[in-house]
């Protein structure tokens, strides 16, 4: 079992502090959900773990199986096994999904090794079938002209191909209709297993009906204020976040 451990993390963008002493322990084999109102810092957490250059870690640590990853480049973290399913994935004009994923997998091989093309396509098609994606999808440019649902499906396809140790899913349910939500959730659930840990970030309880978490954390103002079982999500659904928001705290950015 491996752990992704976040230890008393403080993060700022410019002068603004967004994460204010956040701690979390995600072991492989579990799915944790983070819920919280807009602006509580959920997306920031995901981006900081992935190494986004805009954020400054002022104190605390992020440990991948005991080793700090804060000094690592984003690509090094990715190759180590951290995957972020983006809320707003970037477009890469002219680069097809097939070529992009091939480059990503190739980057994980030792120097001099070549990815085996037939095996690669066999795996790619298998995962696409799982996500109910048509074959011609592979020849489209990454995210270019995609609908919201296609973007999210494409993120999960990449996750399925790259088989991360820890996956961070940032608002994967946003922009999905109920059918797409079911397909995406099915894809995510099929990747659950003893060797994978998942952190599912969401604003709404809806997603957690399909991806059922082991633990639910409530995040407000850059901290986790409560953790519990999946029933906690239902409480939030029924009562909103008001009970969790400290009246004196000022709101922070996304």
């Amino acid at each position, binding site marked *: 079992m491996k752990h992704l451990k976040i230890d008393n993390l403080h993060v700022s963008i410019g002068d603004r502090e967004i994460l204010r002493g956040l701690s979390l322990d995600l072991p492989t084999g579990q799915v944790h959900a983070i819920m919280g109102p807009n602006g509580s810092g959920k997306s920031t957490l995901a981006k900081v773990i992935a190494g986004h250059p805009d954020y400054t870690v002022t104190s605390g640590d992020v440990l991948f199986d005991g080793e700090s990853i804060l000094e690592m480049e984003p690509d090094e973290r990715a190759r180590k096994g951290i995957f972020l399913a983006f809320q707003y994935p970037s477009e*890469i004009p*002219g*680069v097809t999904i097939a070529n992009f994923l091939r*480059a*990503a997998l190739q980057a994980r091989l030792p120097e001099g090794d070549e990815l085996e093309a037939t095996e690669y396509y066999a795996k790619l098609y298998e995962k696409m079938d799982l996500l109910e994606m048509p074959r011609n999808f592979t020849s489209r440019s990454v995210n270019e002209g995609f609908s919201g649902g296609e973007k999210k499906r494409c993120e999960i396809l990449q996750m399925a191909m790259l088989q991360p140790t820890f996956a961070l899913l940032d608002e994967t349910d946003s922009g999905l209709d109920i059918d797409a939500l079911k397909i995406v959730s099915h894809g995510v659930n099929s990747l659950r297993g003893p060797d994978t840990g998942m952190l599912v970030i969401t604003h709404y309880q809806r997603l957690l009906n399909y991806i059922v978490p082991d633990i639910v954390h409530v995040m407000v103002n850059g901290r986790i204020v409560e953790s519990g079982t999946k029933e906690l999500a239902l409480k939030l659904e029924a009562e909103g976040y008001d009970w969790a928001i400290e009246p004196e705290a000022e709101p922070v950015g996304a």
Partner: protein
Amino acid sequence: MSDAQNQLEIDREKGNFRYDVDYEFDAGTGLNEKTIDYICDVKGEPDWIREFRKDALKKFLEKPMPTHWASKDLDNIIFDNIRYYLSQGQKPKRSWDEVPEDVKKTFERLGIPEQERKFLAGVEAQFDSEAAYSNIKEAVGKQGVIFVGSTEGLKEHPEIFRKWFGKVIPTGDNKFSALNGATFSGGSFIYVPPGVKVSHPLQAYFRINAENFGQFERTLIIADEGAEVTYMEGCTAPKFDTATLHSAVVELVALKGAKIQYITVQNWSNNVFNLVTKRGLAMEDAEVKWIDCNIGSRLTMKYPGVVMKGRGARGEVISIALAGDGQHQDTGAKMIHAADDTTSNIVSKSISVGTGRATYRGLVNVPRHLKGCKNNTECDALLINTNSRTDTYPAITVRGTGNACQHEASVSQVSEEQIFYMQQRGLTEAQAMSLSVNGFINDLVREFPMEYSVELKRLIDLEMEGSVG
């Protein structure tokens, strides 16, 4: 030297080597009538060529440098310090075994004989002023296709050569076409008889080996009625501290219903001034297509053109330019519509890296009395770094009521979010850059033959490694 610069050196590695060569013929430095006489004597040329050269020299000396619109860097060419003719002999060999060892080693290292075996219908390999090797496959020769150097062309096939030589690009077209007229040596002469379709490309490889040298090849390609031919040229030079000049003139003639496709992959070292005049003449229903890729050089000024002289003629320029740190790629296209129902298409994509500068300069002309003419111009620029530069100067003149034109231009930058996204998937920053750039030009690279598109991708990968860090 920073890490980035170190890596940039690697880019040129393939062409950046040089073996010592003893030149039997050397016109010395500087250019005057004596230089011309030396070249004519050595090459044993007829009088009309001697006169042509001397007239060109006069025009070259009279014409001012195009500094009012062009890069001031042109002033750094010191014409008196350049050597205008260097060779080991004038007769190209038909077999690689007969090519002198030092020259053969050079071309083997560049992979030319291997490419010839694999996918080419014929090859000419020019080393400084003269072709060292020139040969076509027997089957192609039997169809009546002529593929020789310009010197051989003018001597052995004067009836075709003289008819078209200097007709598409007059000597006085610009200062550098005049310079080429005075000093030309090497280049290809190709004639494809009526109805003959050459299925594999003919290739020329231009190699500069000497320092302070000027290479002035002259190419003339004639596709007779209904003929089809694809010609590819590649070029490299070792990196010297002093400037090297490459100033070619290329004339294409596509007679009724003929098709000529001319592909260039220019990868000169960063000390080469590459000032080239290229123009094609397309007669009735003929097609001239330039596929032009400029990666190397210090300054390139090149605007391949098509004069559409016959009804229904088509002209096309597909252009890719990569301006690396310290480089200026001033490229574009000229489309001259001179008959009804003529169609031209220009697609230009440029990438500027570091302090690199890419300039698109276009000229499209459709006069009032014509009808049914169409032009489409697209130019897209990609900026990699914040200090990179791009400029676009499209000049489109379409008169009359029965003609149409369309122009689109865009400038984009590789965004930090895009790079982060790709890095998050495990690609290094350099790999991410490289993938973005390859994606940007992907639709144009498909126009290149397979063997060249692989090479192109490799060159871009190497160039991008130096752009980050």
